[in-house]
């Protein structure tokens, strides 16, 4: 590995992300924020939802925003740069084993996911008004979760970005990301699926479940959530699988 090259590529991605910051943030954060406002503010203030729902919603929205941002930030450029223009070639020709370029993309995606996660907390707080009760008692757990979720989002981006073509982006969104969001325990805790035993098991194949539940356990432990062990195990498993799969797809795309 060549650290200078690696850092130069990170600098390039940071530079491009800064230039496109507004678009990137709007793309991935506007929708969750509107959801927060409607369900966390309007529905709770009007009495259709209990006020505790605000606190329950926040970790889920944070998981959702992080996963969307990281996935989007890694997948979209990869899809575009591997297409017709082959823009990625200038970096594949840099003096570094090409797998490190994939790793660099993952690191850049992680940073963006973490930034969006950190923006969500105050933004959601503002949108929902008073009554959000998150705890800062489990800081180490929170940091671990945030890092694992960021890695999840970026490695999912790598796997998707190297597997779909330009024509399939819409399909990727409606077939992969949308079901992931709705069945990802973002808007409700996993325990809420008690009455849906089959679904309760099925959603465990969705990595977003572990992200939401993990952040819920770290930020609002007063609500039911999956055990830390299950969450860490699930996230580590998905992270490892997605990185291995993503690297394989990357190699296939990068070499002929």
């Amino acid at each position, binding site marked *: 590995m060549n650290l200078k090259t690696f850092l130069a590529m990170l600098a390039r991605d940071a530079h491009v992300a800064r230039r496109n910051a507004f678009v990137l943030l709007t793309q991935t954060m506007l929708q969750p924020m509107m959801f927060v406002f409607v369900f966390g503010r309007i529905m709770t203030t009007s009495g259709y939802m209990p006020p505790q729902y605000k606190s329950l919603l926040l970790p889920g929205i944070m998981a959702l925003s992080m996963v969307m941002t990281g996935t989007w930030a890694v997948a979209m450029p990869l899809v575009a740069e591997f297409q017709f223009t082959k823009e990625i070639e*200038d970096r594949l020709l840099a*003096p570094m084993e090409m797998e490190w370029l994939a790793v660099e993309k993952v690191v850049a995606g992680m940073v963006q996911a973490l930034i969006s996660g950190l923006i969500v907390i105050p933004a959601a707080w503002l949108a929902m008004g008073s009554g959000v009760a998150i705890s800062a008692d489990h800081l180490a757990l929170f940091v671990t979760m945030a890092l694992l979720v960021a890695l999840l989002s970026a490695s999912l981006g790598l796997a998707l970005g190297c597997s779909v073509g330009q024509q399939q982006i819409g399909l990727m969104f409606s077939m992969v990301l949308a079901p992931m969001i709705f069945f990802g325990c973002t808007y409700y805790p996993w325990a809420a699926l008690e009455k849906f035993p089959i679904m309760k098991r099925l959603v465990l194949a969705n990595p977003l479940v572990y992200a939401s539940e993990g952040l819920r356990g770290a930020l609002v432990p007063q609500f039911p959530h999956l055990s830390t062990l299950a969450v860490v195990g699930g996230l580590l498993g998905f992270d490892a699988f997605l990185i291995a799969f993503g690297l394989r797809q990357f190699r296939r795309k990068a070499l002929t």
Partner: protein
Amino acid sequence: MRVGIRTDSLRKVFTTPPPVGGQVGRPFAPRRKGAPKPTYTVVALDGVSLDVEPGEIFGLLGPNGAGKSTTVGILTTRVRPTSGQAWIGDFNVWERRVEVKRLIGVVPQRPNLDFALTAREVLTFHGAYFGLSAADRHARADQLLDRFKLTDRANHMLFGFSGGMMQRLSIARAMMHDPSVLFLDEPSAGLDPQTRLLLSEMILDYNARGKTILLTTHNMEEADSLCHRVAIVDHGKVIALGTPKELKRSIPGGYVLRLHFAATPPALADALRAMPGVTETRPAGDGRLDVYADRGGTLIPGIVAAADAAGTAIQDVHILEPSLENLFLHHTGRSLRE
């Protein structure tokens, strides 16, 4: 550093379509049950052995699909050879990819510039990937932007750039880290004559500093004027190799007269072969006959008379002066542009 290029019986067989974008297709193409999986086998290179001297300008000349870009792809670490070996300097290309990438600069056939950056950033980030210090890469970028006449567009994003500007920027980028070996895949395709001239100048300048240059082209004049040696490739094989002069001299006679008759009775070919200066005649099918000779137009009256005597008539004459194009025609029976 002076670095050469060597390949030994390179072979590349594509079993999946090359992963080029732009193919429009459904993500899940329906296939009838039991229908065989469509197979795809294309032999792009079929045993190419080359030896490019350090400091040489070497040309790969051939029509589209001859295997030129695949050769460049293998030599630049981007394509894995099915069999055979390639070396840049002392480094085996496939086994020592990182070291090889340090030595080479690549100008691809289609510009693959980073569209998220401005022209100047394309150069400075490229320099950074190769470990150039900040001061070095800014100085070098300025210098290259100036030489390639891009200074006034240096801080623009690439969206509005013309094909010629992108090509110039691609070449500037390839030179940014001062590589010992420069690959140019069809560098002059789609360029106007003025830019083409600038490009030739740049190539010769760069070579004058002891750099090795390998370029592919299907333009005979370009190969003739720039290259020290040329390999003519077709269907993944080298069919002729030498200096442009040697190659041209190797064509029997030098001139080719492409004739079209109403009919070609055997007596006609015999009569033509017996004419002074004619070294060879070759039927090209459908009333066509190629005559290799050491002279051109002065043969026409004799040919017309011979056609008359053989009871046929001449319909079309095309005279080709000695050139690499004729050589290609001689070896393949096809002209480069067909």
